[in-house]
Each structure stands twice: as C-alpha cells, then as structure tokens.
C-alpha cells in the first residue's frame, strides 16, 4: 500500500515536470523582450544588453529552466511584470474567493448530482430518467456565463433574493458569505452536475443488474437501502473519478463565473493577467491550477483502495 502511494506520487513527477517545462517555454517564447521593457523607451541597445546580462536572460534555455524550477520548488513564482509585486503574494490575496466558490460548488454539485443519477438509474427508461438526462444534455450546452447571467437576472435583479454581484469574505460570517456564493455556485455547477449525474446513472445501471442487488431485494431490504448502501457504494469508483476529472471544468469555469459575478478571485486575476500580457503572473496561475488538478486526481486515485478493498496494489 505504502509502496503504491509512493509509486503513484513518483508517476506524477514527470507530469508536473512537463507542465513546468510547458509553462516556462511560454514565457520564453512570449512576444516582447523583458529587458527592453524594464530598460524603458529611452534606453540604448547597450543598456538593454546590460540589463539582459544582469537578469541572466542571455543564458541557454535549459540553464534558465533549471534555475526557474529551483526557485519554484522554494515557493518563488517570480514577480508580476505589471504590478511589480511577487506573484505568490498576488495569488495569495485572491485565493480565498476562488477556493470558497469551488468548495461550495463542489459540495452543492455532488449533493445534487449523485441523488439525481441514482434516481435516473432507478427509474431508468421512465419520464423521470429522460427528464433528468435531458436536463444534463441541456446543461452541457449552455455556457457557464449564460447560466450566470440568467440566474443573476431572475434571482437577483427581478426577485431580489440574492445579491447581484460581489463577494463577502468568510470572516464576516457564514450567512453573507454563502449568500454571495449561491448563484455563482449554481451557474458554475451546472455542467459539473450534468457530468456527475450521467456517470452516476451509467455506473448505477451496471451495478443494479448484479446478483447481490437481487439478493438484497429478495431478502426484503428497503429500496433506499439497496440503492444507497449496496448499489451506490459499488458504483462509487467511476463517480469519484469523474468528480476528480471534473475539477478541470470548475477551474476553467471559475475564470468566467468570477467575471460575471464580479468576484475578486483567481479567475479575475487570470483575466486581468491575460489582458495585460503579464506572463510571470499567467505562469504562476497556470502552474498553481495544474498542480491542484494533478493533486486532486492523485487523491482520487488513492481513494480507490478505500472505496473498494478488492483493489490492492
């Protein structure tokens, strides 16, 4: 078991190394010469050359990549070209809203999608099933920001149930914090719910055909017990896997959702960084998100043994 965990972690190292290499190449091939930018308009070519030397920009690609990686491992993501502040600080300031949004979305989506998928599988072929799966196809087809605008228009502007935009830190109380996050979380969660519900239904359909389900039924077990104790537990692996993979949707969607609902999080920071072509900042954000994504899927992988004791490594 321990050997497996170690091996699994070792496998993610080349993946992360590739991501780092990719993200570094990004800055390397990015248009614009940082030395010229720092030197300013008045600088002579010699001055630019001097600055380039002092920054070490004239050295070979791999040497620079090595040094850059070494700094990253120490937690130094460089400095933002636009604000001059360390990328780590900028990201740190924006972490809470995004983490809050993703956490609320994750909890909400799983809480809605899994019972939805179970119900669809239980009533497979009926109108309930078709309705739920029809909703899933629809949710796949409407872009995040459109859902966001519709929700904000109906529930915030017209009905005035929730604030239209903005974010309240968790430190100011759970209620206000949650109130600001409900609509963005539903908007962001739509695709995610559709994805999880579809996989839950598919996985449950397979498990419900098994002999032990018939046995449970024969011994008079209540329907709810069969579905949620016997079946769901055995159908869990694909569901947990897709929850992990779907984090990518949440990360991509957060960038847009935060723009719609004016949440000052990492997504907004990303959009600002892109529009200002602030490459060190873009690098830092992409690296962080990818790292989180890989880490989540590593955890999912390790969860398999807990969910299904038959899986041994």
């Amino acid at each position, binding site marked *: 078991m321990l050997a497996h965990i170690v091996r699994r972690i070792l496998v993610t190292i*080349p993946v992360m190394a590739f991501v780092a290499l990719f993200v570094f190449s990004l800055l390397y091939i990015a248009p614009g010469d940082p030395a010229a930018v720092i030197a300013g308009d008045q600088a002579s070519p010699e001055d630019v050359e001097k600055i380039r030397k002092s920054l070490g920009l004239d050295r070979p690609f791999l040497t620079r990549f090595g040094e850059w990686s070494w700094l990253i491992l120490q937690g130094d993501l460089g400095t933002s070209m636009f604000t001059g502040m360390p990328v780590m600080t900028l990201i740190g300031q924006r972490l809470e809203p995004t983490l809050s949004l993703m956490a609320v979305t994750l909890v909400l989506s799983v809480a809605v999608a899994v019972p939805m998928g179970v119900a669809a599988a239980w009533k497979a072929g009926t109108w309930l099933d078709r309705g739920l799966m029809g909703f899933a*196809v629809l949710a796949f087809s409407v872009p995040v920001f459109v859902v966001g605008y519709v929700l904000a228009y109906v529930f915030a502007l017209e009905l005035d149930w929730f604030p239209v935009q903005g974010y309240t830190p968790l430190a100011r109380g759970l209620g206000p914090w949650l109130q600001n996050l409900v609509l963005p979380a539903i908007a962001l969660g739509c695709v995610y719910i559709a994805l999880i519900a579809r996989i839950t239904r*598919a996985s449950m359909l397979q498990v419900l055909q098994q002999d032990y389900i018939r046995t449970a039924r024969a011994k008079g077990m209540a329907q709810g017990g069969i579905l949620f104790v016997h079946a769901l537990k055995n159908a869990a692996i694909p569901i947990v896997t897709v929850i992990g993979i779907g984090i990518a949707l949440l990360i991509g969607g957060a960038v847009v959702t935060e723009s719609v609902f004016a949440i000052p999080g990492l997504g907004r920071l990303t959009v600002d*960084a892109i529009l200002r072509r602030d490459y060190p900042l873009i690098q830092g*954000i992409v690296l962080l998100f990818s790292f989180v994504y890989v880490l989540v899927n590593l955890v999912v992988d390790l969860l398999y043994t807990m969910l299904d004791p038959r899986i041994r490594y």
Partner: protein
Amino acid sequence: MTAQSEVVAPAMRPAMAAPVPVPVGIAAAAPMPDVLPPVKVRRGLWGFVYRNPAIAFGAALLIVMLLIALLAPLLATVDPTALAPARRTRDPSWQHWFGTDMMGRDIYSRVLYGTRVSLAVGFSVAILASVAGLAVGLVSGFVRWADGILMRVMDGMMSIPPILLAITLMALTRGSVGNVITAITIAEFPRVARLVRSVVLSLREQPYVDAAVAAGTRTPMIILRHILPNTLAPMTVQATYICASAMIVESILSFIGAGTPPIIPSWGNIMADGRALWQVKPFIVFFPAVFLSLTVLAVNMLGDGLRDLLDPRMAKRL
C-alpha cells in the same frame, strides 16, 4: 438517449412467443390472442427519424444553422459592422429585430454572421483535433518506445484545464480566428490521442489482427484495414463532443476578451459587448446566448444519438 434500445426490444418478442405445438388427443386451449400488436417497421427517412429522434433533431437544427451561416448576407437586414451612434441600445423592434448594441450595430445581423464564426471554429477544431489525435494515438499504440514519452506529454497537457490552456495560448498570440482554432485544438487533441491509443491497444489483441500479422500483412496495411475502420465510430462521437466544446470555449475566450478580435461579429464578442449593460439591456446577451446554446445542444444531441447508434452496448451504459 435510451430510445434506441426500447425500439429494438419489441421487435424481438414475437419470435419468443411462437405458438407451442399442441400434442394430438389433448383438447387444445383456445389460441391465445397476440398480446403484442404486430411490429410496424417504418422505413426510409421517417423511419430513421422515428428510431433516432436525437440524431434527427440535432442534424435538423445544425442544418438550419449551416443555412443561416451560408445565407447570412441575404438574411441580414444591415451590415453587421455598420455603426449608427444615433440608434444605440435600442430595444428589439420591427426595424431591429434583436435590438441594437452600444454602438448602434444591429444585433440580429451580427448574430447571423456570428453563426459563421462559431460553426467554423467548431468544425475546424473537431477535424484538426481528430487528425492530430489520430496520428499521436496510432504512433503511441504501435511504436512501443514512443508510447511512454508521448503519453507523458499528453498527460502533462491534460493536467492543464483545457479552458485555461486555451486562454494561455491565446495570451501568446494576436487574437484571430485561426489562432483561436489552433489554441482550442491544442487544448482538446490529447483526449482524442488517449482514446485512439486505448482503441488501438485493445484491437491489437484481437484474433483477426493476429491472423493478419501471421499472414504477413505489413503494419501500414493492418492499420489501414483493421485499425482505422474500428477507430472511426468512437472518433466520430468524440469529434462531435469536441465540436460542441470548441464552440463554448470560443465564446468564453471572446467573452473575456482573449478570443476572436472584437471587430469580427462572433457570438462571444456580441455577448462581451453586452456585458457592461446586461442589467438594463439583457437582450444584447440573450439573443447570441440562445443561438449558441441551441447550436451546441444540436451538436451534443447529434453526438449522443450517434453514440447510441454506433455502439448499442454503450446505449445501455450511458
């Protein structure tokens, strides 16, 4: 989604309900009336529509969108880029069916022209990603030493969330339709490569491939004859999903200002123009949003229908 399996099932039942031969000398019970009415097999186009409503709906809607894209110059009422400062942010009316935006441009005409951008991006990305994914998937399925390297690279690319990867690539280049297509293709094709590789690996174990190898067939011929035809079905389904996803990503890129140049009327750009005014003039965002959602829905339904049609075993599972 499930319509396919239900239509097939009754057709098989009459065979099982064949009359049991009655031994001579025993009073025969009155023949049982047929419980099931005779199965009416519909043929031709309407039969296909009846059996595959999802494909029919998706294809029909997509054809409508294609026609709109092709005939945009005829259907549009005015030039989609014509500015008319005097007629800014008009509500929908007889003159401007979908209203006008902040610069007085006619949203109806812009939405029609936007169809071209979305369809072009969706179809191009689907085709390019399929070709690139097929190439990488075939190589890593057949060339052992390349497999490890290629799959690590694909894993690395897949560990960057696709929208984020596309946004990042767009930050490196100028905004243009070609660059948008390239960026989304790069973000999407590793998934195709993974799919093709897994199909290739399972096909290689098939007896008929062994037989072909034993008969001395060369690898290119095996790929052409035995592998490619079998990857076609899953790849077609995957391509429709990529097409749908590409159209959504294009609109997201344009929406946050990192996509098609603002001068080109794409659905994402129209919505980006309406962003500042969405609380007072929601129709600017609404009309392109409806068109985009309907088009993506059409492609998704086509994909679901094709999946059920091409792989009936999957129909039960998904």
